[in-house]
């Protein structure tokens, strides 16, 4: 049995619907007769047109003054109380997605199931699956409460595919509360080259690089291979690179064709962010490093010797 209606919390990256939004909409389409979205942001008409290509029939726009949590959740609650309740609301495991999800769970007094990478409907039971212990175990949980069910999903859990094309109707959903948070200024970190979580090749550096200056080796190699540079949390926390470079449980999930781990040990929290890569190359001087357990090509060696030679060989081509 399919569900009647699923709502998706839609977000944008730049001025287009973000990949995670399109991924969960694609999945929602397979599970329900009707997929509708809530969107708080600019260019609603253009965003709705894009969402329509993925089968979203209605986009509720929410005017927000501060952060999304309170206003978007209150607009959803108002729709639900007005008799418009969906069976399920799907969120990305993102900054604003989590805020809205958490506020909504309190307002509706519903449990939330977070960080999932799969979902299934069996009868009228909704089950979600999350991967735990660094991806070693899959845990499936069923909701045992009234609808709407609330769940969030990790990026890259589903492939985004257009389908069920319609023209999405755009309607305003009024928030009943704005909250007291003010956004004064938004800062965008400039970067060139492909975006980390969309690149087909990623070169990530870790503490094994020894010092911040040596991250240049990672950047140079990424550039030569037209990939994106990434990092372990150890060097993000140490301030060598911005947080936006972080791969792992608390960072980005990447699934490139080739992932090159340079001086990264392979902690479970790092591996959950990259073990879905098609192939993995690791350079580490410790033969016992856990990263070798999942590498297709492992080089036991010193990054300061292997990397310069590799870069030189590629530059000579």
């Amino acid at each position, binding site marked *: 049995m399919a569900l009647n209606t699923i709502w998706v919390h839609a977000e944008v990256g730049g001025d287009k619907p973000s990949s995670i939004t399109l991924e969960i909409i694609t999945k929602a389409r397979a599970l329900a007769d009707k997929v509708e979205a809530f969107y708080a942001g600019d260019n609603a008409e253009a965003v709705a047109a894009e969402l329509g290509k993925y089968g979203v029939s209605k986009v509720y726009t929410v005017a927000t003054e501060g952060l999304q949590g309170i206003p978007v959740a209150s607009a959803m609650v108002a729709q639900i109380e007005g008799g418009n309740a969906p069976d399920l609301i799907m969120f990305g495991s993102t900054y604003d997605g989590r805020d809205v999800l*958490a506020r909504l769970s309190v307002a509706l007094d519903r449990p939330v199931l977070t960080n999932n990478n799969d979902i299934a409907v069996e009868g009228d039971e909704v089950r979600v699956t999350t991967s735990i212990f660094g991806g070693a175990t899959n845990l499936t949980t069923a909701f045992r409460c009234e609808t709407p069910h609330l769940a969030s999903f990790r990026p890259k859990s589903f492939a985004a595919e257009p389908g069920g094309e319609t023209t999405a109707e755009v309607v305003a959903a009024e928030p009943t509360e704005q909250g007291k948070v003010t956004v004064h200024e938004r800062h965008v970190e400039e970067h060139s080259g492909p975006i980390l979580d969309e690149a087909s090749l990623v070169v990530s550096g870790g503490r094994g690089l020894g010092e911040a200056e040596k991250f240049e080796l990672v950047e140079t190699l990424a550039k030569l291979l037209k990939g994106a540079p990434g990092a372990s949390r150890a060097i993000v926390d140490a301030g060598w690179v911005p947080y936006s470079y972080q791969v792992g449980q608390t960072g980005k999930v990447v699934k490139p064709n080739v992932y090159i781990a340079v001086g990264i040990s392979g902690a479970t929290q790092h591996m959950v962010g990259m073990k879905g890569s*098609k192939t993995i190359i690791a350079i580490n001087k410790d033969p016992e490093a856990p990263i*070798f357990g999942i590498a297709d090509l492992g080089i036991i060696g010193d990054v300061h010797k292997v990397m310069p030679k590799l870069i030189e060989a590629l530059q000579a081509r």
Partner: protein
Amino acid sequence: MNVVVCVKQIPDPASPGALDPSTNYLKRDGKLILDDSDAYGVEMALQLVTNAGGGEVTLVSMAPNDETSGLRTGLAMGAAKAILVSDPSLAGSDALGTAKVLAAAIKRAEPELVIAATESSDGYTGTVPEQIAAILGFPSITFAKSIVIADGVAKVDRQTEAGYDEVSAPLPALISVTAGVVEPRYPSFKGIMAAKSKPVDTITVADLGLAADQVGAAGARQEIVSVVAAEERQAGEIIEDDGESHLKIVQFLESQKVL
């Protein structure tokens, strides 16, 4: 300024996690330690109280047993006291149930600011802080990478997908902090000794006036229906660098049509 920091006590992340086969809950029977993620919150709170020129830091934690070793670490860093909600009925609590308990405990301390980590190391739902704020009716700012308090307003740089936002909220408020927001201090010997005699108020779910069916497994309203081992990724070729191993990488990249 009085600040509450939510601190979770967790099994040592260095030892492999396991589920209790009879309940499928994460095993929490060994020694529990202060979640590293919360050490940042404790340090941030101590610094903010110092900058404010007065007030104290209260730790609030929930656990199914009366474990205090993680709390002692926070007290040794400099927190003044702790509230521990400990009750066997809390086993199997989900994020919302946890937030209900923590919010009720936090109310007792009447804080102007509540700090939590953006996500815990063992549960990482990342929703508990915002749920606490919703229950308390506080504004909240998640993913803080810096906090400045002035004239009753919290100014925060909030991490975003694209960079960061400068945001602010009036106190009382809840803020969740990211790792690396400050450098947590190591407890001094004096701090460790002093922590032994700092007050830890241990209370039960009934003390908080919460009904038993709101918390623990009953309140969670969900059921784990399967636990299966994920397909394992196989290791490939591992070679020792002999000065020429970079050529192996070049070959591999060629085989993947990157070159």
